């Protein structure tokens, strides 16, 4: 091989690799990563299907109807307490000590900017005439009950997803319904 080609290609490949690594990290905010930001490999399948917890147990509501959202590590420690009297393995997970609540928040596909007023309580409480729920958690968040590693839907939930659903269940699609 010509010496000039080697002199060009080796720095080029190294620089391109470093460039891609840096920008791959930087693009994490835009939903290109599969893993949730917090880094705890949370297993939804165990909690929901084996232990039979409802979604409300962790993703519940405050008394005034506000959605708690994604729980803090402190919520995990309520059950996974290191000094718990229950001597099962799951109750003594030591690695939760490594995580603090002031770290970067969990990211979610359905996270909306602050100009959207979305009320989980109102949407989840809407019912058909016969009493059936109009919407389930999975309608926006995907099949989290079978999720084993905290992987999430790629991309970002746009306004069209909300509008399609509002159209389908005969809810008003006026701007002021969600935006103020």
């Amino acid at each position, binding site marked *: 091989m010509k010496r000039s080609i080697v002199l060009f290609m080796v720095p080029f490949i190294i620089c391109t690799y470093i460039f891609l690594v840096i920008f791959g990290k930087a693009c994490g905010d835009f939903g290109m990563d599969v893993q949730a930001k917090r880094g705890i490999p949370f297993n939804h399948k165990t909690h929901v299907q084996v232990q039979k917890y409802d979604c409300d147990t962790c993703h519940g*509501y405050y008394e*005034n*109807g506000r959605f708690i959202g994604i729980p803090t590590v402190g919520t995990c420690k309520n059950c996974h307490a290191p000094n718990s009297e229950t001597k099962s393995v799951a109750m003594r997970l030591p690695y939760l000590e490594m995580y603090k609540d002031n770290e970067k928040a969990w990211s979610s596909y359905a996270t909306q900017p*602050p100009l959207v*007023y979305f*009320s989980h*309580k109102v949407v989840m409480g809407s019912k058909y005439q016969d009493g059936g729920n109009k919407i389930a958690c999975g309608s926006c968040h995907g099949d989290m009950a079978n999720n084993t590693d905290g992987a999430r839907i790629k991309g970002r939930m746009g306004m069209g997803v909300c509008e399609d659903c509002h159209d389908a269940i*005969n809810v008003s699609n006026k*701007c002021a319904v969600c935006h*103020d």
Partner: protein
Amino acid sequence: MEHNESANITRKAPAMRRRWGMAIDLDKCTGCGNCAIACAQENNMPIFKDDSDLPKRVTFLDLMKVTNDRDAQYPNVHVAYIPKMCQQCEGNDPSDPKPPCVSVCPVVATDVGDDGVVSQVWSRCIGCRYCQSSCPYEARAFNWWKPRNEGRFQESLNPDVSIASRGTVVKCTFCSHIWKRERDKAVANGELDINAVLYTPACVASCPTGAMVFGDLNDPNSEVSRLSRDRRAFRLVHTIDEKPADEQKRLRGIKNYPNPKVYYLTSQQWIRDMQRFR
């Protein structure tokens, strides 16, 4: 009797029957300015170094001081304070609202909600300021600068209201975020009917003399509905109200009037005279 289109409309939005309106008794208003402060705090109004620069100031609620005549001598001097916010116009036909600002917006950033409140979505606004010039009441404000919240002021902001960016038009929406919050509370208490939820905007809640009344104009028993039919009631710069009924009907046929939903009450004739262009 009912044609298909109106039947469609009632099927699409069956839930909302409210039509929010406001009545302000200028005889009771003392001009304390609580409403303006409460509005600014509730809606995260930006604070600028020079707030006396009126065209560039951002406020939803202006407390206007008006006098009968600047040349009036002592016994004849009258002063009144008029709190002026977005009048939530609905055009000639309430079932098909056409406020002057909505019909000119090129990007549907402003629209009339099911409850009759004219919404303004700043993220959709492109800042052409067409609505601002079409508004007969100068109720809209343009964000000339990015709001700067110095020091710990950031922590005192209302988390329900997003902070509009530079280059967008903002306006009063009758504190519709409070209605959404109240709706959340009602649903949490098991009340699923959207029409059962009432709320009070920040300006009305802060009024110490009870001069401002907020409520549902569609409900004939509500206080605001009673006050809107009062003999003292008038609307800002809306002289068509003083004309006889058949003349009103003729005029509405040839021109779209703003038809605001904010009613002012006064017993003084000079305030009514002031509403007429001379």
